[in-house]
């Protein structure tokens, strides 16, 4: 790869136990170098409680997962829908669904318009080898909405909106196929319901999302979703459950990559952010905006949680979180939206 120009980002002091950056009012790093989240969750100075789901025997957790997925079988053509980004976690979820849980999944990839080329290739290889049906669904609303957000200049967490819309489409497809179970390759760190350090970001981002979209009737469905996401999904998809196998099966990055590369021809993308992930091209823009506007978001929280759970070293987490944001990726993303780099990156203001 040619030498890429890298976007300069604000430098922040980080917790010496995890990778959360100092963010006044939200992430406070003490004189001991440890953040308030680590202290609250039992890393560093506080003894961690033993009574957690994580502490159960691995075989017990796997049998719980098997029992749980079996409850959702409908006897239809597919036992579950696997939400697939094309990255290692979601491809591994396909593998687990088929080879460990014995399910007949339907693999669904939602393309926001920013998918990197390795992602659909990984989906094609995995589904061909495992013998799984698949769908790629391209959504244009996401690009249109991102354009509106960027032009507004408001502080918005782009990934939150994208995840919500992808989730919505996945549920819609599951419903159309009579499937009551969605398997998504979310890691322990991505169990955001427990992550109170994200709530203030969600609150401000959601408020600004509503402010921007309320003048666009085409996106009334998004406003209904944002009014109450949990309520929306319960109202429109009451029978559908979403489970991540990684709550029940240990997530080991090296082992996952070994299985995927040797058995499923898996390839990583050097142009993703973080590097070698499955996140789309636009994530370079989204991550820059998050660091500028909020200081951190889901990536830092996920990585920090994996470090606390002992499933990733801090060094590896730092390496990932400090992946370069490439100027070319930002330019290409903005170009897809008909926006100029200098207009967005040079003159961005906070709401």
């Amino acid at each position: 790869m040619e030498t890429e120009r890298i976007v300069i980002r604000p430098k922040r002091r980080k917790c010496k136990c995890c990778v959360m950056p100092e963010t006044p009012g939200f992430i406070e790093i003490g004189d001991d170098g440890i953040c308030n989240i680590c202290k609250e969750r039992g890393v560093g100075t506080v003894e961690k409680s033993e009574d957690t789901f994580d502490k159960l025997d691995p075989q017990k957790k796997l049998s719980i997962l098997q029992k749980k997925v079996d409850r959702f079988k409908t006897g239809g053509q597919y036992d579950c829908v696997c939400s697939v980004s094309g990255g290692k976690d979601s491809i591994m979820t396909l593998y687990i669904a088929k080879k460990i849980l014995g399910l007949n999944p339907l693999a669904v990839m939602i393309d926001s318009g920013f998918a990197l080329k390795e992602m659909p290739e990984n989906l094609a290889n995995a589904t061909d080898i495992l013998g799984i049906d698949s769908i790629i669904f391209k959504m244009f609303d996401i690009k249109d909405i991102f354009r509106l957000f960027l032009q507004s200049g408001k502080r918005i967490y782009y990934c939150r909106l994208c995840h919500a819309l992808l989730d919505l489409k996945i549920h819609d497809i599951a419903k159309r196929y009579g499937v009551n179970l969605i398997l998504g390759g979310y890691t322990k760190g991505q169990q955001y319901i427990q992550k109170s350090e994200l709530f203030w970001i969600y609150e401000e981002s959601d408020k600004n999302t509503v402010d921007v979209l309320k003048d666009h009737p085409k996106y009334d469905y998004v406003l209904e979703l944002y009014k109450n996401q949990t309520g929306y999904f319960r109202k429109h998809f009451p029978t559908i459950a979403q489970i991540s196998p990684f709550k029940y099966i240990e997530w080991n990055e090296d082992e996952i990559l070994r299985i995927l590369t040797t058995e499923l021809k898996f390839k990583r993308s050097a142009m993703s952010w973080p590097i070698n992930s499955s996140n789309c091209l636009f994530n370079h823009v989204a991550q820059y905006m998050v660091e500028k506007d909020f200081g951190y978001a889901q990536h830092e929280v996920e990585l920090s949680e994996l470090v606390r759970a002992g499933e990733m070293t801090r060094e590896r987490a730092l390496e990932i979180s400090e992946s370069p944001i490439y100027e070319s990726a930002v330019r290409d993303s903005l170009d897809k939206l008909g926006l100029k780099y200098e207009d967005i990156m040079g003159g961005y203001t906070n709401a």
Partner: protein
Amino acid sequence: MLEEVFKLLKENVVELEDVDLKEDTSLIASGYMDSYEVVMILEKLEKIFSINIELDELNLEDFEKPINIAKLVEAKRG
């Protein structure tokens, strides 16, 4: 009420089947329950106890421990 909550949790949350539940057992922070289980339990509570809990007023802290769930039901029953 607490015993009824224990029974409800054990019957509906696979993760809790073999757990020795106490009134202050952590349910969400401990990882036993996620958002799906919270909403599922909420709906079961509504049916069994003939109460109504709007999702708008859903507070995760009300589902963090069995005693909290019991108190929520008692408050809703009036």
